[in-house]
C-alpha cells in the first residue's frame, strides 16, 4: 500500500512539474516529483480536516488520482508521444567519453554516505525529543484519528503540554509522517530518507542546469559531507526538510534570474511555498527571495509573474493560519512571547548574538569547512563582484543570512537563553544555507571557468 501511495504521489508531483513546464530534464522531473507530490497530499490532509472528512490512505489516493487525471486530460497526446520517444532512446549512443573518474568517484562517495545515513535512519526508532513530543506524535495521531484537529488539542484548542510550538507547525512534516502511518508502517522515518534522497537528486540536476556535471557533483558532495546537516537525515526533525525546499527554491530563483527561464521562477515559488508549509518562520526566506523577484519583475515589467510568485509563496502560510483560526488552535506555550514586536536598538544584545552565532558557525564540527571555503570563494571573486558579476546570487545568500540572523535578534529571550537558542535552533536552521553555499562555491565565475576547463581536460576535449 505504501509503495502504491508513493507511486501515485510521484505521478501527482510529475503532473505538477509538467504543468509548470514540460521542458525540465528527465533527471529534474524524477527528483522534483515526490518532493512536490507528498506536500500536496499533506495539504489535502488539512483540507479534509477542515471539511470534516476523515483522512485515510485511501481518501488521499483517490484525491491524488483525480488530480492526476485532471492535470493530464490535455496531455494525453503528449504523454503518448513521450512514451514512444522514450522507447526510441538508444543506450548504445551514450558517449562514455563525456564521463570521467572524478565525477564518478564524487557520485559514488555521495551514494555511499546516503546509504549509510539512510540505513541509520531506518534502523533506529524515533527518539529525537522534538519529534517524539512533536512532529512524529502529531503524525501518529493524525493517522489514527483522521484529522489535524485531534485529541492532542484540549477543549480550548491548546496543544498537549510539552509540545511547545511543534504541534502547531504547518502539517507538512507531521502529515508526511501520518501518510507513512496510515499506510501501515510501524515508523515514519522513511519519509525523511525520501525527502533527503530526492533532494540530492534534485540538487544535482538543478545545479547541472547552471554548472558542469562535475560542478553539480561537487555541490551535492559538499552538501552531503556537512556533518550536522547530514546527521539530521537520520533524525525525524523538521530542519532538514526545510533546508531541502529553501535550498532548491533559492537555486531555482537564481536560475530564473541568470537565464530568464520562467519555469524556474514558478518552480522556485513551488519549493518556497512548501518551505512555509513546513515551517512558518521560513517566511523570512520567502521575503528575501520575494525582494529579488520584485526587483527583476519590475525591471522586466513582468508583473503577472510577480503576482503568481507572491501568491504561491504566501498561500500555504495564510492557509495554515486560517485553519488555526477556524479551529482556534493554540501552541502548548500560548502565553510565551516569542518575538519582540517592535524595532529596537540594543548593541549589547547584538554583540552577544554575534558572539554566539560566530561560535556555532566557526565550529568545524558542525559545518565542516563549507563556510571557510565559501568565504575563500568570495575572496577570490572580489574583482568579479566589483564588476557586478553574479551579484543577485550573492545577494540571495548574504541578505537572507542577514535577515535570518536579525530574526534571532528580534527574539524575546525571556523563555530561554540566547546561547541555547543559537546552539539548537539557529544551528539547525542554518542548514537552509548549506546547499546555497555549496552552489556558490562551485558556481562562482572563477570556479565555473575552472570547471569548464577541467571538464575539457579530463574528457579529452582540450
Amino acid at each position, binding site marked *: 500500500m505504501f509503495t502504491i501511495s508513493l507511486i501515485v504521489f510521484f505521478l501527482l508531483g510529475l503532473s505538477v512539474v509538467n504543468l509548470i513546464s514540460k521542458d525540465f530534464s528527465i533527471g529534474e522531473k524524477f527528483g522534483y516529483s515526490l518532493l512536490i507530490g507528498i506536500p500536496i497530499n499533506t495539504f489535502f490532509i488539512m483540507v479534509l480536516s477542515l471539511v470534516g472528512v476523515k483522512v485515510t490512505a485511501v481518501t488521499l489516493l483517490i484525491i491524488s488520482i483525480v488530480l492526476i487525471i485532471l492535470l493530464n486530460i490535455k496531455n494525453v497526446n503528449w504523454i503518448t508521444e513521450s512514451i514512444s520517444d522514450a522507447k526510441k532512446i538508444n543506450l548504445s549512443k551514450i558517449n562514455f567519453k563525456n564521463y570521467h573518474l572524478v565525477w564518478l568517484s564524487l557520485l559514488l562517495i555521495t551514494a555511499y554516505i546516503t546509504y*549509510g545515513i539512510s540505513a541509520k535512519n531506518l534502523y*533506529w526508532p524515533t527518539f529525537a*525529543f522534538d519529534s*517524539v513530543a512533536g512532529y512524529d506524535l502529531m503524525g*501518529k495521531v493524525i493517522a489514527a484519528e483522521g484529522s489535524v484537529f485531534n485529541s492532542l488539542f484540549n477543549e480550548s484548542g491548546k496543544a498537549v503540554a510539552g509540545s511547545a510550538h511543534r504541534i502547531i507547525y504547518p502539517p507538512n512534516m507531521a502529515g508526511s509522517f501520518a501518510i507513512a502511518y496510515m499506510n501501515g508502517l510501524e515508523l515514519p522515518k522513511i519519509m525523511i530518507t525520501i525527502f533527503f534522497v530526492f533532494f540530492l537528486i534534485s540538487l544535482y540536476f538543478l545545479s547541472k542546469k547552471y554548472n558542469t556535471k562535475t560542478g553539480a557533483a561537487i555541490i551535492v558532495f559538499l552538501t552531503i559531507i556537512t*556533518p550536522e546537516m*547530514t546527521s539530521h537525515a537520520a533524525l525525524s526533525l523538521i530542519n532538514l526538510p526545510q533546508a531541502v525546499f529553501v535550498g532548491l527554491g533559492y537555486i531555482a530563483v537564481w536560475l530564473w534570474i541568470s537565464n530568464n527561464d520562467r519555469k524556474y521562477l514558478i518552480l522556485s515559488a513551488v519549493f518556497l511555498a512548501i518551505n512555509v508549509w513546513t515551517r512558518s518562520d521560513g517566511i523570512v526566506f520567502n521575503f528575501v527571495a520575494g525582494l529579488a523577484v520584485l526587483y527583476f519583475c519590475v525591471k522586466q515589467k513582468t508583473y503577472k509573474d510577480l503576482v503568481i510568485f507572491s501568491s504561491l509563496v504566501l498561500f500555504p502560510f495564510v492557509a495554515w493560519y486560517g485553519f488555526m483560526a477556524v479551529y482556534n488552535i493554540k501552541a502548548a506555550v500560548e502565553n510565551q512571547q516569542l518575538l519582540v514586536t517592535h524595532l529596537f536598538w540594543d548593541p549589547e544584545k547584538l554583540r552577544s548574538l554575534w558572539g554566539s552565532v560566530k561560535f556555532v558557525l566557526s565550529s*568545524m564540527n558542525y559545518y565542516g569547512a563549507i563556510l571557510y571555503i565559501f568565504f575563500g570563494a568570495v575572496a577570490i571573486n572580489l574583482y568579479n563582484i566589483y564588476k557586478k558579476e553574479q551579484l543577485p546570487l550573492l545577494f540571495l545568500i548574504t541578505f537572507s543570512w542577514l535577515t535570518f540572523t536579525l530574526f534571532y535578534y528580534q527574539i524575546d529571550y525571556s523563555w530561554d537563553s540566547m546561547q541555547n537558542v543559537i546552539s539548537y535552533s539557529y544551528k539547525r536552521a542554518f542548514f537552509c544555507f548549506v546547499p546555497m553555499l555549496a552552489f556558490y562555491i562551485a558556481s562562482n565565475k572563477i570556479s565555473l571557468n575552472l570547471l569548464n576547463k577541467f571538464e575539457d581536460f579530463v574528457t579529452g576535449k582540450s
Partner: protein
Amino acid sequence: MSKKNRTKKSEKEKVKKQESIVYKLVLRNLISLAVLALVIYLLYSNVPGYNWLWNGLIKGNLETIRTYPDLTRDIKFEYKENPDAGYVNFIKNNTSDTSSIVFPPRNLLINNEKGFKRLHTKAWITYTLYPRRVEYYNELPDTNDLESFDFIAVFNYWGYDKVSYPTNRANEYYLIPTKAK
C-alpha cells in the same frame, strides 16, 4: 611501396593515434582522481567534522547495524532513552490499546534522582503510550475518581497508597490496576 602496404601502415598509425588518445585520457583521469583523493584526504584528516561524519556517523552506525541486526524496536528505544523508555515499554506491554493510565504528579517525575528525564513531558508519554489515555495525577479534575482509569503507574513507590485494596509494595516501579480484580 604497394597500395596495400600503405593502407596497412595508415591503419596502424590510426590505431596508434587512437591508443595514444586513450592513454592520454586514462592518464588525465588518474591524475585528476589522485588530486581529488588528496583533497578529500586533507579535508578528512584536518576537519574534525568530516572525520566524525565518516568514522562516527557512517562507519560506526553501519557497524552497529551489522553487529545487532535483529534488535527489536523497544530495545533500540531503550538504548537511546533509558530509563524512561524501559518504564513506558513495561507499561505498554502490560496494557491494552484502550487502557487509561494515571501517572504520578509531574513534580515527582521532574525531581527524581534516578535519571528519568522524559516522563514529566505529557507529549512524550502520549507518544510512547498512544492510543492509551494518560493523565498526571496532579492534573486530574477529581483525584478521588481514580477508578474511572484502568491503571496507576507506580513510580518510586508512589501509587500503592492510591488504591483501596491491599498491595505488597514489592516493586519500586510497577503498574497496578485501580480496582481489585
